[in-house]
């Protein structure tokens, strides 16, 4: 991946996108990795019993979708030593087993500071296979 530095990053430039297919194995593995075992994620039987969110299926962790979006940023900046210093997200629609999530990011702001301390803002979206936005987030990234 090309070197990413504050001076050369262009506003409105798009980061390479990331696509993830989500199934129950992915969700349950994420539960173990994140120590979040809320039954809405790991118990299809319970989700069916309570008719969770009206469709009765488990849903993926919001933090998992958030991590996919954040990985768009780290894939882009980490090899050059960039540092993610702020993250904010909103989860708009559930992600269900069988969904394919496409995450995209665009550099929307540049904040000049002393050398080595400038940061950019990346606006991110996550959409499912129906083109519906399931989550949005912003990442503040300090770039060398």
């Amino acid at each position: 991946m090309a070197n990413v530095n504050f001076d050369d990053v262009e506003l409105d430039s798009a980061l390479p996108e990331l696509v993830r297919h989500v199934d129950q194995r992915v969700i349950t593995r994420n539960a173990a990795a994140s120590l979040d075992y809320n039954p809405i994620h790991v118990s299809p039987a319970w989700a069916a019993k309570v008719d969770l969110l009206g469709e009765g299926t488990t849903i993926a962790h919001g933090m998992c979708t958030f991590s996919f979006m954040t990985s768009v940023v780290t894939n882009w900046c980490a090899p050059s030593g960039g540092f993610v210093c702020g993250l904010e997200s909103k989860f708009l629609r559930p992600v269900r087993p069988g969904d394919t999530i496409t995450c995209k990011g665009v550099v929307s702001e540049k904040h000049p500071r002393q050398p080595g301390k400038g940061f950019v803002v990346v606006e991110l979206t996550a959409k499912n296979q129906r083109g519906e936005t399931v989550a949005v987030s912003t990442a503040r990234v300090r770039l060398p």
Partner: protein
Amino acid sequence: MDDEIRVEDFLTTAKQKAFEHDFFKQADEYEKWEDVDFDAVHELDRTFTVEVEDIQSYSQGILDDNPLFNDEAAAAAGPYGGLVGHPLFLTPIAFWLTGDSGPGSWVRTPGAINPGQKIELYEHVRPGDVIRARSRFHDKWIKRGKRYLTYLTEYTNQRDELVAKWWATLILPTSRSDEAHRF
């Protein structure tokens, strides 16, 4: 069937094997939306000593194969000088430090829904770091019939450096029964 996918099949690290993964078990003792103490500052008792396996397991759990978050040798030659956690590696740290009762245990409430999060990060998390947390009430509100709760938690390492601040918010169910959220 999806029920054949067992949590137990994914427990690989020492912490994962030790952590209580049945969130129903002590659900009656979890902190409730209506009972939060507006003024208390909670120094959480537990610590999270970061192991290589913790970082690697989390990266695998979010399907991120970036060598800087997975491969010790590659990471040592990289810009951070060693393996570091993905920015959201804070997630298992948060759940581990909260434990299964006491302040902040509302995050384990069965049926709680995540509307979005806000995190500020100040330092990388590395193997060998010992992370502690201090947590306090930040806000609670009702909107369109849903009950939101936010705690602000500050995470520090063994050098007393601030590692992160997390404004953690969940929508909490109104009942301990099996009533589902309906939107």
